[in-house]
């Protein structure tokens, strides 16, 4: 029983309830929204954001921020897109994309650890640099004519379940288990929660911060591969502004920007919510220009309510502790 109450208290559970409420409410207005086909489609379109949010969660957990994911996504999508267009194999394209992610992650990590630049500034600068590098690489042109069999890769179904969706969901679960159960996975939370404490415990803080940036870079480049296979072409501004959506998704899912709090599952749920809202608006026949207004106000409302809830529970806990101390004295 206590296990159930524990689950209900979880922040991710509240996010999940919100997601279900969203589907039920929109389903009442237009029952097509609840069809399996649409749920499958919503999941498929949120894959990109889920992968990015997983990487971002690692960085956020250590108390840093990675704005450069949009640039990494665009650059790796452009490079792997050209390789595929010129007849290269999927394997080479994937290796090239991941290498790009690793390199950008290392650069970010170097700036944050060695040059002691605030991660926000460092990754923002890298974002604008990678955008220019992408333009130079593609000569300002779109990468088009990617073979059709690459596009089919994202649409393979086994037993009616999309393979890519399945892989991503399994990946999220694995990462979640790694982060919450393994010894080294806990390091990320520890660093974000209390850096000095982590150093005292003997955690190699700098190395793990670098790891987090590299992981985020790899996730962004994997998202770039998904982008190529789902969309089929790479424009010069592919993934522009995506970094802010991803951060918003993480925050919606209960990942704290201060660090130390949050889970990958929550971030993935947040990503699904953000993409579901877009399709929900279509099903509710609301014009598309309401998109930003609704996701923006939703983000603000959820975050403020969350902060107030957290503040109140803290106050209650403090009061309880003080009362307990007084009682002890009397006894």
């Amino acid at each position: 029983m206590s296990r159930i109450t524990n689950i209900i208290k979880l922040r991710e559970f509240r996010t999940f309830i919100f997601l279900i409420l969203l589907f039920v409410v929109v389903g009442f207005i237009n029952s097509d929204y609840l069809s399996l086909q649409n749920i499958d489609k919503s999941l498929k379109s949120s894959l990109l954001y889920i992968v990015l949010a997983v990487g971002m969660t690692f960085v956020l957990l250590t108390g840093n921020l990675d704005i450069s994911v949009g640039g990494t996504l665009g650059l790796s999508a452009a490079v792997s897109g050209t390789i595929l267009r010129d007849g290269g194999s999927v394997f080479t394209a994937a290796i090239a994309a991941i290498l790009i992610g690793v390199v950008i992650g290392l650069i970010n990590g170097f700036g944050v650890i060695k040059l002691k630049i605030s991660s926000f500034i460092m990754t923002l600068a890298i974002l604008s640099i990678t955008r220019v590098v992408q333009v130079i690489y593609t000569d300002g042109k779109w990468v088009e004519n990617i073979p059709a069999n690459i596009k089919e890769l994202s649409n393979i179904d086994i037993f009616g379940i999309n393979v890519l969706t399945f892989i991503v969901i399994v990946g999220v679960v694995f990462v979640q288990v790694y982060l919450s159960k393994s010894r080294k996975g806990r390091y990320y939370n520890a660093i974000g929660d209390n850096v000095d404490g982590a150093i005292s415990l003997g955690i190699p803080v700098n190395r793990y911060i670098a790891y987090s940036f590299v992981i985020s870079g790899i996730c962004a480049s994997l998202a770039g591969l998904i982008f190529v296979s789902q969309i089929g072409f790479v424009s010069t501004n592919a993934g522009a502004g995506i970094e802010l959506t991803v951060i918003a998704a993480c925050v919606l899912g209960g990942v704290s920007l201060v660090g130390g709090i949050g889970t990958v599952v929550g971030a993935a749920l947040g990503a699904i919510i953000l993409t579901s809202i877009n399709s929900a608006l279509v099903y509710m026949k609301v014009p598309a220009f309401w998109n930003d207004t609704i996701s923006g106000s939703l983000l603000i409302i959820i975050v403020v309510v969350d902060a107030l809830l957290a503040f109140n529970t803290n106050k209650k806990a403090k009061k309880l502790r003080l009362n307990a101390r007084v009682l002890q004295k009397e006894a």
Partner: protein
Amino acid sequence: MLNKIPKWNLTLFILIISEIIVFGMINPRFWNVTILLNSFNDFISVAIIGFFVTMVVITGGIDISGVSIIGLTSVVTGLLSQVVGINIWVSILCAILIGGLCGLLNGVLIAYGRVQAMVITLGGMLLYSGIAIVLVGLSDVSTYEGISGFPEGFSQIANGEVMGIPNSVILFIVMFFIAYILLHRTRFGRYIYLTGINQNTAEYSGINTKKIIAATYFLSGLSAGIAGVVLTSYLGSARSDYGAEYLMPILTVVVLGGTLITGGKGGVIGTALASIILGFMQIGLQMAGVSTQYIGLATGVLLIVSVAFLGINPDFRFNVRRIFTQKQNIGG
């Protein structure tokens, strides 16, 4: 006298001079004073917002919603004056006030709701640009062409000149002085610094830090509103996507100006000098024949180098001093 000027500002000033010399050697047209003064039009919006975002950053926060407040005020100005038919000056005032209100909403939520500034202004950024798009969508105006047909007097705000000096330069100087006096010459300004250095200490010494923080966001919103009006006047039509690409330049200007992103240290003079550096660099690179697409590379590198230099500097100086004092001890 020279000692009183902070070293970083002096470095920035030297950077401006060297920029003028280098770009002038590449393309002598750069030495034309009229062209230089007119180039202020291209970065005035960034500078205006930068001045007041500097204050926000000094309190330890950050404001990224200004970029979409530009679009919102632009659309509001256009709609009120062209579609609703209100007097242009009244609608400008309304638009700027709406910008201020957006900032105030950010500030109240951040100061009194105890939410991370980054998250709230991120939500605000989505929300305000969303409202601008909704306003455009509801009023049957072409999204791409925007609302045009403003009276001549309105376009004079940015394009006119007084005694040979472009209005944008005058506006730059006026906004700079307002920000300078607020931050460096009033009690309010001192409170901003104290809040940024240590909010708890400031609170205990009787400063209403929440009010101070909310006020800085309000000012930042107002300045974004002014920037939106100026940009609309300069470009001659009102669109919702103005300012979308200004996030990077605004933060570059603030950080390059020597303001610590963690708060408590910085100033408006640095921001002003940095915005001139950035503006001249853009125009200089364009004149040197570099495509506009590549300018992001230069600003990005500039940002990293300047912050790395600022960050390493104190450690470096400390080490140097330690070596020297040790030597003295041995010698004595």
